[in-house]
């Protein structure tokens, strides 16, 4: 489409450090696109290159087919909502919001500013100074200040990072509403996977300057492309398979820790001999004996070592015969009772919920979520 | 208030600015005027001072000086005025120590005990210094004078002999130095104490440290940048000062500054005056570098 934002083979190095490594990416016009990754993964650098605040070391950035790689920030139809907002402390809210219009030479800014402030529900705040507003209000001013210019692309750099949890959830819904209303392309940088999943229609998971996986949130979650994604976006039980894959009809079978498991061929991303068998914790079911395993399900046995009640579910750790602790989330739907630590259990799953990934040589089982860093 | 900025500026670690793309000549253009001014009127004069110190000592301003590389000017000057040098360093060291003892509680009180009066007290530290240095020192001459109420009171209390005096004693000179350079101690101390997180003191208390050990183990180490900046900003001008010795002392209390002043402006013995001045600079720089190195706060430079 004509308004697509496209990055082609973009690299950014700071001295010996490569922040963004040969990145190619297309953001369709009107999309709500999230760049998700831990701090230092290159997501903010990518955003700054789109804004014009960093110049790529190599590669090209185009917007609607026009090359904008070397344009100065003020020459681009792109606006940014900065982390911690960067509101001008010496200007009133009205003047902050009007700043872009005035620079573009718009004479009568008052009606537009008024309209914008009411869009973000700050109608009576125009005369105040930024420091007199709460964090959530400042965030909305930053949004209004960018949106009033009707950019082709709006960049959001961790815009909700400084807000407390409740306000953050509220603002997520608000942002989503505004995006739908104005129809502008949003590129949203965040380290919060839940934020990325609830808001964006396309998520790109970044790690070490590269995109690990790109797709709709559900697609990425249900069928992650790499072990990193499997454990950065939520949590996965990844079991190290040995001895390669064997194909039988539409299924692949692998051996892990002495047992054979099968997975539908369509659920495999494995290309070599070193393989991970992955299952999400909530796709695992706990039953008391092998006789209770539903037909077609696969299973293994273990001992409950820990249970944490978290409301909607109970999270169990189940130690297997080979000493790996699996995570199992059992919904508190009132059907099953709770299991005490020490109970012998059988863990069962539907092969259609499992997936196969390439495993690095020497890597063992991985069953823990990567710890998120707070920016 | 701006001296606080000096403390903050010298005391805090300098962040490397981000690389700016293009126009590599711009920083040099911005530097040029001030840099040139300092090179011409600060660095070059020091070179000239070095040269003057090696002139033929038998010359005079009227007959002109010949450059004879007379390194002998140095031992000669040092020999003649070593006591003035030692007196300067001694007075300055004692004055600096007293400034630290007086300035620390004041800076701490402003930073952590003053509440909403913080700015008022800070202005209070600086305000007296808007009255001219000389006028203030002359006021001390009045306060310390032999028939003034202070001396009278001290005599009555037998803290001072019946004919004991304050004016024209080393005590008066040192007190003058303390008075005049105290703000240079207080402001950097304030700048670093203000950054001290009160919760650290609570944490120390929680971990069984009493007030005294909390001070020695937490407060003082964390305020070291301020202590170093403050002692330097006090010690350096105090060493070179001669106003206090001139107005509050007698020739027996004269410091090296008095000698340099009179050698340059009264005796017109330029080679010796320059040698003394150069020696003073060398001694001060030596003390500063050794001190900064030993206190491990090199970023202050």
């Amino acid at each position: 489409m004509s308004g697509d934002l496209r990055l082609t083979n973009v690299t950014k190095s700071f001295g010996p450090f490569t922040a963004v490594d040969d990145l190619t990416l297309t953001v369709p016009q009107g999309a709500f696109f999230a760049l998700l990754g831990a701090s230092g993964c290159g997501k903010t650098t990518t955003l700054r290159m789109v804004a014009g605040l960093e110049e790529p070391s190599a590669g090209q950035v185009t917007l609607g087919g026009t090359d904008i790689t070397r344009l100065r920030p003020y020459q681009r139809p792109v606006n940014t909502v900065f982390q911690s907002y960067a509101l001008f402390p010496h200007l009133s809210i009205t003047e902050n919001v009007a700043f872009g219009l005035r620079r573009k030479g718009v004479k009568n800014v008052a009606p537009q500013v008024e309209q914008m402030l009411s869009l973000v529900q700050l109608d009576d705040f125009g005369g105040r100074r930024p420091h007199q507003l709460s964090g959530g209000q400042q965030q909305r001013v930053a949004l209004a200040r960018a949106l009033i210019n009707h950019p082709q692309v709006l960049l959001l750099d961790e815009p909700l990072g400084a807000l407390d949890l409740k306000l953050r959830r509220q603002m997520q819904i608000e942002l989503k509403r505004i995006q739908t209303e104005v129809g502008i392309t949003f590129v949203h940088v965040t380290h919060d996977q839940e934020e990325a999943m609830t808001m964006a229609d396309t998520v790109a998971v970044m790690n070490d300057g590269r995109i690990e996986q790109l797709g709709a949130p559900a697609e990425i979650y249900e069928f992650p492309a790499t072990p990193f994604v499997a454990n950065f976006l939520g949590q996965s039980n990844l079991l190290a398979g040995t001895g390669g894959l064997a194909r039988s009809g539409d299924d692949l079978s692998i051996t892990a820790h002495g047992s054979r498991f099968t997975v539908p061929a369509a659920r495999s991303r494995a290309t070599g001999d070193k393989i991970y068998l992955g299952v999400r914790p909530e796709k695992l079911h706990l039953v008391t004996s092998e006789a209770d395993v539903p037909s077609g399900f696969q299973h293994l046995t273990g001992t409950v070592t820990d249970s944490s009640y978290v409301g909607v579910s109970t999270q169990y750790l189940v130690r297997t015969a080979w000493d790996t602790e699996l995570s199992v989330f059992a919904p508190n739907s009132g059907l099953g009772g709770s299991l005490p630590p020490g109970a012998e259990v059988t863990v069962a799953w539907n092969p259609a919920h499992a997936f196969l990934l390439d495993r690095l040589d020497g890597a063992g089982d991985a069953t823990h979520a990567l710890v998120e860093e707070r920016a | 208030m701006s001296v606080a900025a000096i403390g903050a500026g010298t005391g805090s670690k300098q962040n490397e600015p981000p690389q700016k793309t293009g126009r590599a000549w711009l920083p040099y253009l911005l530097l040029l005027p001030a840099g040139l001014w300092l090179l011409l009127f600060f660095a070059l004069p020091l070179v000239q001072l070095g040269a003057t110190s090696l002139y033929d000592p038998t010359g005079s301003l009227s007959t002109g000086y010949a450059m004879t590389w007379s390194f002998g000017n140095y031992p000669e000057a040092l020999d003649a005025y070593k006591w003035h040098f030692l007196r300067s360093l001694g007075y300055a060291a004692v004055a600096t120590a007293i400034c630290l003892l007086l300035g620390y509680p004041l800076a701490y009180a402003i930073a952590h005990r003053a509440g909403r009066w913080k700015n008022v007290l800070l202005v209070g530290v600086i305000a007296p210094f808007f009255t001219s240095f000389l006028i203030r020192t002359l006021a001390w001459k009045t306060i310390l004078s032999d028939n003034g109420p202070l001396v009278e009171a001290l005599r009555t209390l037998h803290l001072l002999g019946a004919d004991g005096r304050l004016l024209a004693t080393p005590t008066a000179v040192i007190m003058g130095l303390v008075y005049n350079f105290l703000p240079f101690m207080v402001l950097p101390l304030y700048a670093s104490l203000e950054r001290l997180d009160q919760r650290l003191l609570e944490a120390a208390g929680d971990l069984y440290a009493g007030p005294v050990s909390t001070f020695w183990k937490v407060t003082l180490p964390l305020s070291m940048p301020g202590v170093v900046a403050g002692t330097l900003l006090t010690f350096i001008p105090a060493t070179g000062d001669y106003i206090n010795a001139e107005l509050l002392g007698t020739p027996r209390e004269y410091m090296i500054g008095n000698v340099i002043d009179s050698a340059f402006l009264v005796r017109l013995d330029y080679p010796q005056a320059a040698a003394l001045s150069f020696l003073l600079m060398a001694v001060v720089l030596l003390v500063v570098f050794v001190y900064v190195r030993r206190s491990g706060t090199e970023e202050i430079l």
Partner: protein
Amino acid sequence: MRRHWVLVTGLLVLLYLFLPIFVVAALSFNEPSSRLSYDFHRFTLDNWANPCGPGDMCDAVGRSIEIALLATLIATVLGTLMAFALARHRFRGRDATNLLIFMPMATPEVVMGSSLLALFVAGGVSLGFWTVVVAHVMFCVSFVVVTVKARLAGLDPRLEEAAMDLYAGEWQTFYRITLPLVAPGIVAAALLSFSLSFDDFIITNFNSGTTVTFPMYVWGAAQRGIPPQVNVIGTAMFLIAVLIVVAGEIINRRRAA
């Protein structure tokens, strides 16, 4: 208990700082019994009614103000430019520049004054008004650089990025965002320069020739007996400075409100 101990000590030290100011203020209302007497003899308003009584004193004050204004203007402009270079750019020679800034602050005034005199004498420059201005600019520049640089270091670079993002070019960004936000630092630096220059005696004494500034006048008068009007000027300077600080604070509060 400790709370009060620290506060009481601090206030006592503050009182010590103000003691001579009280004396100066009191003596400004004094009618001395003789020229060389510094004792309080009799209350009078004459000194305040007739501050320019002693010949030459007001000339010296005027000259000091002239010199201080000139030195402040030059030092503030030069120092601000240099502060921008140091705070905003990476370039070869940064360390050398920082040293050049630091050295004048670490050099005793008597050394700076005498070395400049040595240069002027060697160069055959006649001493006077302009040599004093040159010297004052020299020692003020460092203080301006340090003060403005500290302000620039505290400035969030994202504010300038935000302005550029909002269609302000480099120049517009500078005068609409950077300059207004750094202005308090520049004003503080200028006030500091003015007071340093106005009050300087040692360096001036070496480089003034026959030009008499206010501190030089006081120094000379100290040998012959100080006219009480000197205390009027001292008190007035104190009051003016405090007024400026208070006015600045009020403006700040207004802006914040």
